[in-house]
């Protein structure tokens, strides 16, 4: 179960030195697809940036936007929400709800002046280890280009 402490422990503080700065990305992964996919990437020894801190949830439908705001507050430069492909949800429709929520929350962030690219979503199945590696690489590059959130 996710606790606020988990998010907090992942965070760090301190000033930002842009020459050595690497983005910090909190990834909320569903237990059934993306988490297994990320695991597969690891056991397949795929190389991808060490920028993500993974938080496992039962389903992307469990992702409350307050987790995302709290992540930003606690030091994340980007947040990635990843779950099963549409139709593959273990609970049949959690990812459909999550899709609407993330869409709207991105709009809200954008209106508040926070680049919506700091909140990313992906579908990564249990067998898509290489997609996971690619997603992390792409998201890292995109967030890196945006720079630190709290600079």
């Amino acid at each position: 179960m996710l606790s606020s402490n988990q998010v907090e422990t992942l965070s760090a503080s301190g000033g930002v030195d842009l020459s050595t700065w690497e983005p910090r990305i909190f990834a909320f992964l569903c237990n059934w697809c993306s988490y297994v996919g990320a695991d597969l990437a690891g056991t397949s020894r795929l190389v991808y940036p060490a920028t993500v801190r993974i938080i496992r949830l039962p389903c992307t439908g469990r992702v409350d936007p307050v987790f995302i705001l709290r992540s930003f507050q606690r030091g994340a430069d980007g947040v990635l929400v990843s779950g099963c492909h549409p139709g593959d949800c273990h609970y049949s429709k959690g990812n459909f709800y999550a899709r609407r929520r993330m869409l709207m929350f991105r709009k809200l962030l954008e209106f508040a002046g926070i680049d919506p690219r700091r909140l990313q979503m992906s579908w990564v199945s249990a067998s898509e280890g290489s997609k996971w590696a690619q997603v992390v690489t792409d998201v890292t590059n995109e967030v890196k280009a945006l720079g630190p959130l709290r600079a």
Partner: protein
Amino acid sequence: MEARLLDRKQLSPLVDALIADCEVIAPVDESSYHLIESASEMQLTQLKPAKSPKELVFPQREVLLRYALAGDDVTLDEPPPPAVADRVLIGTRPCDAAAFPVIDALFGWDDVDAAYFERREHTTVVSIACDQPCDTCFCTSVGGSPAGIEGSDLLLTPLGEGDYHVQVISERGQSLVDRYERFFRASDQAHNRERALLEDEWRAAIEQTVDLNEIEMADFESPVWETLAQACVDCGICTFLCPTCHCFDIQDEGDPNHGERVRVWDACTFYEYTRTHAGQPRPMHYRRYRQRIMHKFRYYPENMGKVLCVGCGRCIQYCPVRIDLRAVLEAVKG
């Protein structure tokens, strides 16, 4: 201490001279008092800022200590003492100034809140009398006056012919006048008399709805409380904007490993305020409303000898459903 006169045109130069020597805080817009860097930022309109100046001595968020955890070990650091700089609060209305001595009593009750008094002692309060009170003002009903001196170090009263009459109320006020003597002239009996007449005139302009000496609270169990609070939405506006409401919460904020223990304003109108695992002594909002009124007009006077209200009228003006404290006091007279 002898009164002075200050040409109204000299106010801005005086403020700029003060800014050169210390921090100056003044109303800057309709919502708050703020540090100013030039006299031109000062907004001396009739409307009091929404937020009272209590936050200058009792900030809404105040770090009490910082903690850091490493393994079994904890280190505690205290924040540096606040407001070491001398500062002048200028442009307060007499009601807001009068609130300071009222809450001094609380923060000095047996255990002295040192940070609070550190700020108080470094703050010189220069108030301006109200020549045009708002229609929500009721200072005269709770023992105040639109030209009251309570809590001020200096009181400026705008006189007819372009001068402020300057009452020197305290040692702090005297030292300010001494230091900036060049801006002031001596007052005389005629001006002093004019000031007194104006005060009487302005007092009369404020409808005195309740006589403080007659405030006789309805019984705790009276049904009037439920009726009065019917529309109350349980927000914190009245308490947060009030210059005398002082209740607070203490929270640890930050990581589990390092963070701050902060004191933050709280409101008796909030459900969470008294809720515990064991229940809620004030579950219905009329009970919370009754607590607020009783605290101000009965409990606080009983414990501290002062009414916890200066009649500034913010709770009326900003109430989402316009619950009128004057009406409440009238209704609970018994």
